[in-house]
């Protein structure tokens, strides 16, 4: 190709780059359309994505290494920072891993309270994801609607554990304190107002022609490929596989609840959106059932009202502060736990829970010391984000953006 005069004099470009017919686009690591620290180096031909190479690790914080030096109760805050959109599920998953190692059985009331917390955070997680898909397709107002109710969920968390986003909620064996009457009244007010908002949100998007045209067929993945890539959670179910850890390997008494697993067919952005919406309604119904079950327990056994942890867990459960100041045993256990005097038994455990994005697993190797010998987090985002190039190559650049947001890749979980 003959170089034009202006090309010859101003910028010294290599011969190949002038010959090249495609454009290299660096999307990220910080970009308004990526909602998190993701970098993709894309080769685009006009609007078509020919190739994309994701670079990850920008917020890697070495949690697995840090965990090898921390007593068990100090690892809970690390799990908060994996998927920070649904931190309580990670916290509960970690407590349950230790409970499995210790062989603890929790009272039903505590397990139902945990179910309420986990389903509330699943609703918060899916609300963020779905409203962000809407934002990326150009609809900003649904996002502002759902954030009011996400705020209400965070107020419930705040009432229970004192913090909102990175909750550090619960302890090994149960909760750090009982639910206050205020937390129940906040929960009831959320349950009253939520369906109206959710219907409005769905009314804005579900059968919206513009939204449907934008999402249907964008970033699809077949069930076979999704399984081969190790997809779990809503993204796998959108492809048509009804694998849900809550049903497959029930934990925390999920077997007592009656709920459906929504599934999609082709695994595109619209299916993922609809599966998440369906799950929000199922979570809502699970919370309702849990509230009823707790009320029934309290009616039958009034003394159960004050049960918020398993009594046999008292060597591992940090005692309530008022007990520490008034009871000798509580003071001793508190001291021993905080000073790292409590050893866990040796053993090897894998436990997983259904997180906001899929199977959150904890592979724990304990050599009997006060810290884990090795702790590995199975992070669903890390595993399914590697399918991203396959899902977007050949599609439009704008589809790549909504595919990323509909996969709900959370940078904290991706990089650990």
């Amino acid at each position, binding site marked *: 190709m003959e170089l034009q005069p202006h090309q010859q004099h101003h910028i010294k470009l290599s011969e190949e780059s002038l010959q090249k017919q495609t454009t290299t686009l660096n999307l990220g690591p910080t970009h308004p359309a990526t909602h998190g620290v993701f970098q993709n180096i894309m080769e685009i031909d006009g609007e078509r994505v020919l190739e994309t190479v994701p670079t*990850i*690790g920008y917020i*890697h914080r*070495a949690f*697995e*290494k*840090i965990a*090898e*030096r921390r007593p068990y109760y100090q690892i809970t805050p690390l799990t908060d920072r994996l998927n920070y959109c649904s931190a309580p599920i990670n916290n509960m998953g970690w407590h349950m891993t230790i409970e*499995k*190692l210790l062989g603890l059985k929790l009272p039903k009331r505590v397990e139902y309270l945990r179910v309420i917390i986990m389903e509330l955070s699943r609703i918060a997680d899916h609300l963020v994801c779905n409203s962000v898909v809407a934002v990326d397709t150009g609809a900003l107002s649904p996002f502002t609607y759902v954030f009011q109710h996400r705020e209400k969920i965070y107020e419930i968390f705040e009432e229970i554990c004192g913090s909102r986003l990175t909750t550090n909620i619960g302890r090994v064996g149960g909760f750090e304190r009982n639910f206050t009457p205020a937390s129940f009244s906040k929960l009831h007010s959320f349950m009253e107002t939520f369906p109206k908002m959710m219907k409005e949100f769905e009314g804005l998007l579900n059968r919206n022609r513009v939204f449907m045209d934008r999402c249907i067929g964008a970033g699809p993945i077949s069930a076979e*490929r999704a*399984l*081969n*890539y*190790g*997809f779990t959670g809503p993204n796998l179910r959108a492809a048509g*596989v009804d*694998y849900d850890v809550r049903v*497959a*390997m029930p934990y925390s008494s999920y077997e007592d609840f009656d709920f459906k697993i929504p599934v999609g067919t082709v695994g595109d952005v619209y299916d993922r959106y609809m599966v998440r919406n369906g799950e929000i309604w199922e979570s809502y119904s699970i919370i309702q059932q849990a509230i009823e079950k707790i009320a029934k327990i309290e009616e039958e056994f009034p003394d159960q009202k004050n049960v918020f942890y398993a009594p046999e867990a008292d060597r591992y459960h940090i005692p309530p502060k008022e007990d520490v100041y008034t009871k000798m045993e509580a003071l001793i256990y508190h001291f021993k736990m905080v*000073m*790292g*005097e409590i050893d866990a038994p040796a*053993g*090897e*455990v*894998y436990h*997983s829970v259904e997180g906001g994005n899929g*199977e959150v*697993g904890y*592979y724990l*190797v304990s050599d009997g010391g006060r810290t884990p*010998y*090795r702790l*590995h987090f*199975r992070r669903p985002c*890390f*595993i*399914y*984000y*590697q*399918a991203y190039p396959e899902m977007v190559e050949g599609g439009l650049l704008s589809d790549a953006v909504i595919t990323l947001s509909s996969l709900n890749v959370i940078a904290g979980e991706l*990089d*650990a």
Partner: protein
Amino acid sequence: MALTNEIIQQRLTDKFGEQLTEWEQPYGLLTFRAPAEMNLKVMQFLFDDEQLRFRFLTDLTGVHFPERKGEELSVVYHLHNLFENIRLRIKIYVPVEKPDVYTATKLFSGANWMERETYDFFGINFVGHPNLIRILNVDEMDYFPMRKEYEMEDPTRRDKDDEMFGRG
């Protein structure tokens, strides 16, 4: 008939005989050890066999045991049979001087990044991997940080030693 740990163990023993060892069931999860060079053969059999059908790779990670001479590094696979809903765990051990393990990427596309992560942190060399480069750490790093010889904190620091807590 529902698939149980005993049936899986029997089926694998029929196929591979004495080569699979250290059968355990910690917390109900069937666990065994395979020779390092046989990892792919075992996983391929578990994948293809019409009765076993372990076709989902749940997790793949490494563990470092510096005191086990000749088998310092371990690779742990968690496989899941989604039809019968049962998991199992395979462990293989390799020496730290020559940590060569065959890659599972041909069997499971999802193993790609999991193996890169395991390489990144433990230095396990997955033979045949299409793109075995660091994934979470910086490319310039010249050591494998999850190995036990790298301390979390300043190794000269004494204030967190056991004797400071009346334990030592």
